[in-house]
């Protein structure tokens, strides 16, 4: 399998009182094509910063980053923007849709930036909204959408150019449990459909949708594991029925 994302020794420092704080302290990371990876850790461990570095929203102080085989860590702002619009999709905790654009206008934006014709972009956008179940909301402004609807629009926007990888930062952080369930289902389907995903979260439910789990603490990856299948289904159901007591 080919790697869609590879990071080597990423470092990001911030000035602090006295010595600078290392928000990301030498992280190596790989995401294969079609793979869903989640990065878990307590708040303040640097996982959001890591995500920003991987998507070019922040510059690393050291290290290398490759997306789709191309070296990207040294790109200028403009080059990064051009690269990002085609190859990276972002999903944020706070949704971050443009207030003054309707749902469908938000979704088609990356396609228009890439140079797709207006009609084709609009068509693709409506298709995606349809797939995600928010097509009737296409003409609404974000302010008139519920949290779950907004996040689905954001996911559609992230997918419209069929990016190499979708980077999601606490995608369910602002959602109620119903909407969370919907988004989790969505991510599960995306993962099964072969979209490369990197999810950053402290929520166990979100993390467990991934194939591979990375644990982050104090800016570094301290553990990595495949989640694969756990106990067998029968055993699990038996465990549910267990009433305790001695073995």
């Amino acid at each position, binding site marked *: 399998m080919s790697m869609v994302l590879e990071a080597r020794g990423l470092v990001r420092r911030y000035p602090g009182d006295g010595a600078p704080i290392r928000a990301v302290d030498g992280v190596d990371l790989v995401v294969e094509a079609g793979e869903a990876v989640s990065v878990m850790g307590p708040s303040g461990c640097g996982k959001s910063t890591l995500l920003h570095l991987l998507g070019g929203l922040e510059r690393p102080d050291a290290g290398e980053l490759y997306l789709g085989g191309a070296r990207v860590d040294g790109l200028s702002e403009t080059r990064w923007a051009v690269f990002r619009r085609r190859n990276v999709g972002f999903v944020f905790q706070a949704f971050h849709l443009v207030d003054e654009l309707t749902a469908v206008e938000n979704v088609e934006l990356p396609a228009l930036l890439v140079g797709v014709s207006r009609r084709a972009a609009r068509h693709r956008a409506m298709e995606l909204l349809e797939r995600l179940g928010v097509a009737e909301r296409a003409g609404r402004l974000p302010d008139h959408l519920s949290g779950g609807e907004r996040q689905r629009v954001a996911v559609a926007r992230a997918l419209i150019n069929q990016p190499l990888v979708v980077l999601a930062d606490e995608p369910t952080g602002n959602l109620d449990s119903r909407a969370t369930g919907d988004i989790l289902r969505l991510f599960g389907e995306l993962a099964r459909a072969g979209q490369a995903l990197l999810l950053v979260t402290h929520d166990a439910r979100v993390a467990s949708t991934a194939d591979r789990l990375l644990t982050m603490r104090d800016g570094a990856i301290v553990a990595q*594991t495949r*989640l694969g299948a756990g106990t067998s*289904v029968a055993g699990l159901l038996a465990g549910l029925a267990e009433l305790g007591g001695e073995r």
Partner: protein
Amino acid sequence: MSMRDVVLSLLAKEPAHGYELRQRLAQALGPAGGALNPGQVYVTLSRLERAGLVEAREVAQPSQPDKKVYELTAAGLERVMDWFNDLTWSKVAPLEFHLKLVAAAATRLTDPVALVDSQRLELLRELRQLQELALRESPDSDGALLLEGASLRLQADIRWLEVCQQRIVEREAR
């Protein structure tokens, strides 16, 4: 909760007689210790002796009747190690896991951090299974409701394990 495993783990550090064992248990359980029947310890000890997992010695005392001191056998030690490595999570698991952690920290037979990590990952795998099961159910069915309940409890336990991990890390930092 498996009393036999708990008593065995308490003896893993060093041999003790019944009264001392009860004290060790009370200290580990704190307020939860009130729920435990004091006689349970002695019953369990005799059962363990019969199963060959512990052996007893008489120790002479100057002005008191003889004490019975219990000690782990090799089979008993093996059983303790198996217990540490068992990742099964039952409904009353938190209490048992808590004692496991206490024992691990006291005996140094296994690394407490690694213990928590592997248990946590196992729970995450179970959570993933639950979610896949839930996907096959329709969201409004009773089955989905039950699965949601189990999922929420698992999440709570996972969160508790993270707290345990944090506590261990802090303690080791001091």
